[in-house]
């Protein structure tokens, strides 16, 4: 390939001159084509094509034509854009847009669409899946029936020939061959039976080895040999039993009937379950659209909406506290280290960054253990007996303290950077004008700092608003009032809803998605308001 690239190489030696006689000079004249650029382009486009072809196979296999069309259109669009000399701005915008759609827009849309379904444990698949699951889990061995020794065989070719079960009755030693047509006895002279009852050879049949049989697994599982009592089914590759499905689906009444008890469960398309007349539901349900039910449940269910506002209040306090305290401490240290009289600042800086360098996941667990009443470092060190996580306010203070420790190095870092960008002449000018250090800080340094840091503070607020780790790994939302195990003193909306969605009878993704949309709305509103006020501030100071 590289030999073919002699063209661009020669242009490089000739400096910045226009490339290739056939190219339109007007467009390309200011964009020199280098060998590296071309190689990068070729490799990237090659990768795009490769990924597209790789993704196409499963789509074709699953018959997802819409997805395939989308894939083809996207790939064609990408190729067109990067092979044409026109549309320069689009070339810069497109990669970001593609990633934005793939990693932001699509998950948000998926979450939103999940919020309108009952997707969750017991309601994951389609109705057909549920019917198959109900029928196959109701297959029971016919009481008192024989358990046969099984050899899987085929008529003719072991790979393509029709399958046959060669079964040996353990009591009589009689061998029969069975397929969809039923069982028929084989003459004892025609078969070789190993000790234990397994047929090793039979006239007219090819006995399959496990290896051969296992490649036809699906056919073996699907093969049922009708018998008087039910049907002969395989249990693995070496045993067969007579079983029958107790429950069966009847399309006529759209219901499941139990042959033994005669009970019926009728499909309820709204709930995605088979429901009996007395309200009993079969465990295996399917995914259905439930409309706004998840949303109305969040608003009307007293269990959810009752503690909502208290939690929301603490959630704001936590996010504001985490952001505000870390900012104050981080900025104070940054100011102290910014002073020209300070010595050994580099050493201090390294030490101060340490908490930031440690994995917060582990640190949260360490802090939780340090606050243990009887065995924790804090109580042992100070000779206290405080039940830190056992009382509402001490638990809240503890959580904020841990957040402070984890978060201030970040604020220190960004504040240091922002401080260095503020010209010293400004503060010097204020001191010439006779302002006290405090006045100069209030009037000059802080506003300029805030202009740079306000967007970061808003981002930090939004992050802490949903900081599930900080709570889940320390208090798990506790302490909980004795009469309400649903909602604890340090619960954030996210921990609270996590418990709601995953603490009950299996995971309820539908509810979880609905609640996360509510949380998204809250955070988005808060952020929008804050950004607007920041912009006003910037206008004032700039």
């Amino acid at each position, binding site marked *: 390939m590289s030999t073919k690239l002699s063209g661009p190489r020669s242009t490089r030696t000739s400096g910045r001159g226009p490339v290739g006689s056939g190219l339109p000079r007007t467009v390309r004249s200011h964009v020199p084509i280098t060998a590296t650029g071309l190689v990068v382009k070729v490799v990237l486009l090659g990768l795009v094509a490769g990924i597209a*072809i790789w993704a196409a196979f499963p789509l074709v296999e699953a018959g997802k034509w819409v997805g395939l069309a989308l894939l083809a259109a996207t790939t064609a669009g990408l190729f067109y854009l990067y092979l044409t000399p026109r549309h320069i701005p689009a070339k810069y915008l497109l990669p970001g847009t593609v990633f934005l759609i793939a990693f932001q827009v699509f998950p948000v849309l998926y979450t939103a669409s999940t919020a309108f379904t009952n997707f969750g444990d017991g309601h994951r698949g389609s109705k057909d899946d549920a019917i198959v699951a109900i029928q196959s*889990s109701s297959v029971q061995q016919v009481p008192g029936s024989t358990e046969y020794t099984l050899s899987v065989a085929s008529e003719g070719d072991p790979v393509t020939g029709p399958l046959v079960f060669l079964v040996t009755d353990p009591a009589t030693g009689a061998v029969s061959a069975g397929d969809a047509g039923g069982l028929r006895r084989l003459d004892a002279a025609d078969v070789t039976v190993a000790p234990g009852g397994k047929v090793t050879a039979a006239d007219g049949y090819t006995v399959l080895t496990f290896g051969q049989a296992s490649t036809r697994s699906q056919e073996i599982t699907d093969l049922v040999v009708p018998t008087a009592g039910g049907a002969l089914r395989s*249990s693995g590759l070496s045993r067969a039993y007579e079983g029958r499905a107790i429950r069966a689906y009847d399309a006529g009444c759209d219901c499941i009937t139990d042959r033994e008890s005669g009970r019926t469960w009728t499909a309820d398309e709204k709930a995605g379950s088979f429901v009996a007349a007395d309200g009993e539901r079969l465990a295996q349900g399917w995914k259905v659209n439930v409309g706004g039910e998840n949303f109305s449940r969040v608003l009307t269910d007293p269990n959810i909406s009752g503690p909502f506002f208290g939690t929301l209040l603490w959630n704001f306090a936590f996010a504001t506290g985490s952001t505000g305290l870390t900012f104050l401490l981080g900025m104070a240290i940054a100011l102290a280290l910014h002073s020209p009289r300070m010595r050994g600042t580099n050493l201090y800086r390294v030490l101060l960054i340490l908490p930031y360098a440690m994995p917060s996941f582990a640190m949260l667990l360490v802090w939780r253990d340090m606050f243990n009443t009887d065995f924790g470092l804090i109580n042992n060190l100070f000779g206290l007996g405080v039940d830190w996580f056992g009382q509402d306010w001490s638990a809240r203070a503890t959580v904020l303290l841990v957040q402070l420790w984890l978060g201030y190095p970040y604020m220190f870092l960004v504040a240091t950077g922002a401080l260095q960008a503020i010209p010293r002449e400004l503060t010097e000018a204020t001191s010439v004008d006779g302002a006290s250090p405090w006045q100069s800080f209030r009037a000059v340094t802080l506003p300029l700092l805030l202009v740079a840091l306000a967007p970061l503070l808003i981002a930090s607020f939004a992050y802490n608003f949903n900081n599930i780790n900080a709570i889940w790994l320390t208090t798990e939302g506790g302490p909980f009032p004795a009469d309400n195990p649903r909602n604890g003193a340090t619960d954030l909306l996210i921990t609270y809803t996590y418990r709601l969605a995953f603490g*009950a009878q299996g995971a309820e993704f539908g509810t979880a998605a609905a609640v996360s949309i509510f949380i998204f709305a809250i955070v988005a509103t808060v952020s929008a308001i804050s950004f607007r006020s920041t912009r006003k501030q910037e206008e004032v100071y700039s």
Partner: protein
Amino acid sequence: MRIRTAGVVAVLGLALAASGCGGSDDDSSAPATKESAGAAGGKLVIWADDKRTAALKPFAETFGQTNGVTVEVQAVSKDLQTNFVTASQQGSGPDVVVGAHDWIGNLVQNGAIDPVQLAADQKSGFNETAVKAVTFNGQLYGVPYAMENLALIRNTELAPEAPKTIEELVATGKKLKAEKKASEILCLQSGQNGDAYHIYPLYTSAGGYLFGTGANGDYDPKDLGVGKPESIAAFQRIAKLGEKGEGALKRSITPENAIATFTGKKCAYLVSGPWAIADAKKANISYDISPVPGFAGGKEAQPFVGVQAFYVAAKGKNKALAQEFVANYTTKPDLAVALYNAEPRPPALTAALDQVKGSDPDLAKFTEAGKNGQVLPAIPAMAAIWDPFGKAEAAIIGGADPAKTITAAGKTISGQIK
């Protein structure tokens, strides 16, 4: 023009190369299987956690070699159950999965596992409780291989005699504390949010129950015992052992520090399972194992019995082979012994237990402690119990009013059971 042609040719070449690389990964399952079909056979994929993967590998290889198939054991170290349910829904799950029996309810409601048909003589080789544990709605859903339950592990230097009642245990513990030989009476983990599994023996001894049993012996989610007068009475007795009472049960004893406190000789008694023994041995503690004692004049203390089992995935690609492996291969004692060697829990197969019993006296003691145990409920409703029940326990240990707390917990739980 030459450059552009060159570029296009190069792009196409790379595209083919890239898709070739990617494709070979993707296609390896289909053509490779076909290709090896003549020589070898199909492929069996097993999912297990890290420890068991290591123990299973040699056996899986033997099974593969004897039968001419490829067996792949894949370790899923985190959230095995959730990952299995999700993957099997996507059609990318394994053929066999190894896990705890209390997953069965959830796996069945998601249509993720198929029943296993064992012959009567195979079934009779297992511990009866283990078979009961993997039976759900009258169907056998897995093949058990190990069992586990709580017992009382005591430091024989500090407490030579096994206590017959909790009161006796507390008296000895208090004496040791007064003599400064220990700092805690009893190491029974709770934490700030409680631990339903570990408090359960005391709860049953004091007369409480979680679910009533229906006519067929299955747990009945409609008969919830939490919030009933029996449960309140039970927690009134437990409250007396709490922080405001005897101080034997404490929220400061957490899952993280309970075993360490015992091996640090700070408490003479530990309520824990077979998994704690390795630590006790490492710390050179002289210990003995006895059943968890009940309250004086109360019922027996019944720990939960949990079972580890092999399941056949309902949406596996090679179900016949998976059935063969689970029903006819994992029922052999050798595998159970190997899994025991990987992690010493009593094997569910009686023959395997007999094999290892001689070299490990602890096993028999754990089995003895679990003899009157109750099978951990596998019904999906059990998932609604853990959290509220644990929190109620923690609150009561901390001094909250048992009647109020348990009534609220009962209400929360019944609200979450469908």
